[in-house]
């Protein structure tokens, strides 16, 4: 049913549609409205669920780890420092192969303190072994949340649904909120093969010696790669029910033969799309929306860039001392192409800085330049820095 609804409230309702039995959370802006929404649904008896208001994000993720291991569908949401505080547990959940879903309301990381959006928080969690799906708008956030539970439970891997903080979480827009029947048709009741059960006592969380640790890591790696099939299946199956796709692992929008492409991730895709419409004079440009950061869609990326000669990678995080995070990965994958595109890697929109429509012509212009931009923060104003810090 279409309705104007704030992103966080919509995600809360999407979570509720998945009938979680345990939600644990600790407040951090901009994640708070999601958990407030769930608390409200529970208070109004629209959701039967144990809400644990824990004393830290560390305990939030730990508690839902326990809950999922004990046989309940479980969920949490967090942001920024909260995600970072969870770091140790995030690795642990993935290693234990426990199906969990977490919303990351993306936010910058201090210091300096910034309460505003970027994607540094989830990007530094890239290597935790979680599936990471990024949402371009709140409809995707709703649909991906529902996908996420099925993907997690079928793959026995945790899924992080990333949505830009404020830009999505605090924005009211019109969304088609699925019905309970649709959700139930898509998502079977929770089942975890290794549930903690006195009738069949298992020991979870063992010590593994060098004899088998490598194999354990390999198995996790393979599980993430194989999860691509479940991510695709979820999107397809949900499309049959809802009529909407979230863009598989990666989606391409624009002329097939465009030799310029912009690859980005998250909510900036819409701005880029509108900007492209405003600037037909800049020629045909393909927009590549990266949805699945992990597993990284290698084949899809290669296919999308086969005919591209100039690829701009725009991201909202960076690896200080290295450059971009997505950019180098893209560059590595596309180096396998027969004739790889030139890849221009930009970061923008850090710590809440607006990414305006005007970024688009700048990006295209940079792509046309003689020199490849290996990495740059496109919206930096170095005049604001002391000379020695430039």
């Amino acid at each position, binding site marked *: 049913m279409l309705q104007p609804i704030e992103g966080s409230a919509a995600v809360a309702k999407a979570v509720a549609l998945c009938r979680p*039995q*345990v939600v*644990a959370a600790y407040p951090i802006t901009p994640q708070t409205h999601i958990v407030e929404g769930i608390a409200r649904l529970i208070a109004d008896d629209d959701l*039967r*669920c*144990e809400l*644990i*208001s*824990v*004393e*830290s994000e*560390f*305990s*939030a993720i*730990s*508690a*839902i*780890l*326990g*809950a*999922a*291991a*004990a*046989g*309940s569908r*479980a969920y949490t949401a967090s942001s920024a420092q909260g995600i970072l505080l969870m770091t*140790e*547990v995030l690795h*642990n959940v993935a290693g*234990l192969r426990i199906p969990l879903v977490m919303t990351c309301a993306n936010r910058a990381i201090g210091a300096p303190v910034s309460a505003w959006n970027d994607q540094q928080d989830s990007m530094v969690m890239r290597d935790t072994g979680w599936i990471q799906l990024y949402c371009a708008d709140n409809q995707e956030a709703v649909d991906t949340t529902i996908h996420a539970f099925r993907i997690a439970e079928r793959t026995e891997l945790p899924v992080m649904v990333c949505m830009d903080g404020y830009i999505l979480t605090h924005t009211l827009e019109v969304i088609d909120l699925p019905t309970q029947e649709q959700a139930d048709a898509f998502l079977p009741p929770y089942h975890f093969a290794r549930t*903690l*059960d*006195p009738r*069949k*006592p*298992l*020991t*979870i*969380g*063992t*010590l*593994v*010696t060098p004899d*088998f640790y490598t194999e354990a890591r390999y198995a996790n790696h393979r599980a993430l790669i194989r999860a691509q099939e479940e991510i695709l299946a979820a999107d397809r199956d949900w499309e049959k029910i809802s009529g909407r796709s979230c863009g598989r692992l990666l989606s391409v929008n624009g002329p097939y033969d465009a030799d310029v492409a912009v690859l980005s991730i998250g909510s900036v895709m819409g701005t880029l799309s509108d900007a492209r419409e405003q600037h037909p004079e800049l020629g045909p440009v393909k927009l590549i929306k990266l949805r699945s950061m992990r597993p990284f869609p290698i084949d899809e990326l290669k296919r999308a860039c086969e005919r591209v000669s100039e690829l701009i990678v725009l991201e909202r995080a960076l690896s200080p001392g290295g450059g971009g995070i997505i950019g180098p990965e893209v560059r590595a994958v596309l180096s396998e192409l027969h004739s790889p595109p030139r890849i221009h890697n930009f970061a923008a929109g850090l710590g809440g800085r607006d990414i305006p429509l005007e970024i688009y012509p700048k990006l295209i212009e940079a792509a046309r330049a003689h020199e490849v931009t290996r990495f740059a923060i496109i919206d930096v104003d170095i005049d604001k820095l002391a000379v020695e810090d430039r």
Partner: protein
Amino acid sequence: MDSPRSNSHTVAELHHKQPAFRGLEAGHLACSGCGQALGARLVTEAIGPDVIIANATGCLEVFTSAWPRSSWRVPWIHSLFENAPAVASGIEAALKAQGRATKVVALGGDGGTFDIGLQSLSGMLERNHNVLYICFDNEAYMNTGVHRSSSTPHAAMTMTSPSGKMRMGKRHLKKDLLAIIGAHQIPYAATATVAYPSDLRAKVRRGIEIEGAAFLLVHSPCPLGWGHDGALSIEVARLAVETGIFPILEMERGNVVTAMKIRDVRPVVDYLRPQERFHHLFDDSPEARDELEHLQQLADHNIERYRLTASQPEAHDSEGVDTVGRGGMRWS
């Protein structure tokens, strides 16, 4: 002399035919004489099979769960060092949501409880989850190789609080964890020791029956870290009680409601002498003598603070509680 071996069961079969349920099996990798291994098994005996255990990182975790083997007969999960109470909270919430009556127990060492997991524990207690948290207190980070924790007693030597020209072991006091636990006003908290299994089991049963959060601190000697003969684990634990060093208490809603009386109070040196970690206190230097006296005063303070002496012997005092007789323990 006929050996009972001549009866119908092989030893291997006997493991499955013990009259009490034992949730922790043989074949674990604990040091010889480990107090914690004993404590954990006693705990599982008192709880029975219908339980889920969340275990913090530490010796107990490592020596019971080296893949592909496990020593546990109950469902058991280890996640991390500092999150066992949170994991247990989640398990409890899940069971509640599912309408399952299975008990939830969290286990940790003193490092995981007094130090790194204290926040998580505080959260679990404050939310009053129906979980029994049991800390096996061996008074240092033994798993890492004997390093001081906030539970390490004053003046005890560890690898990170060595004694030397400028130091007499740990400079600080043992953290009064029970007072912190008590401040959460939970329904039940207690201390116990592996030296008094019947008392320990009774407290585990009490803690598990209580609706809401319960906490149990179990003094568990570590032959490696304390530097005593493995055969003396029980002896040393008993002396900790009989000297007043480790008071055996029960607390309800933050108030101490029972304190095990010491029938014959022993001097603290009786407890310290068998332990290598206090060896430096016996070198007859003025500093050593001061510290010995300090430890005696700490014990005396406990005795005064918790009124650990009585005019009359009591059935469950330090002598009565471990009385055995023909056919079993008196209070089992």
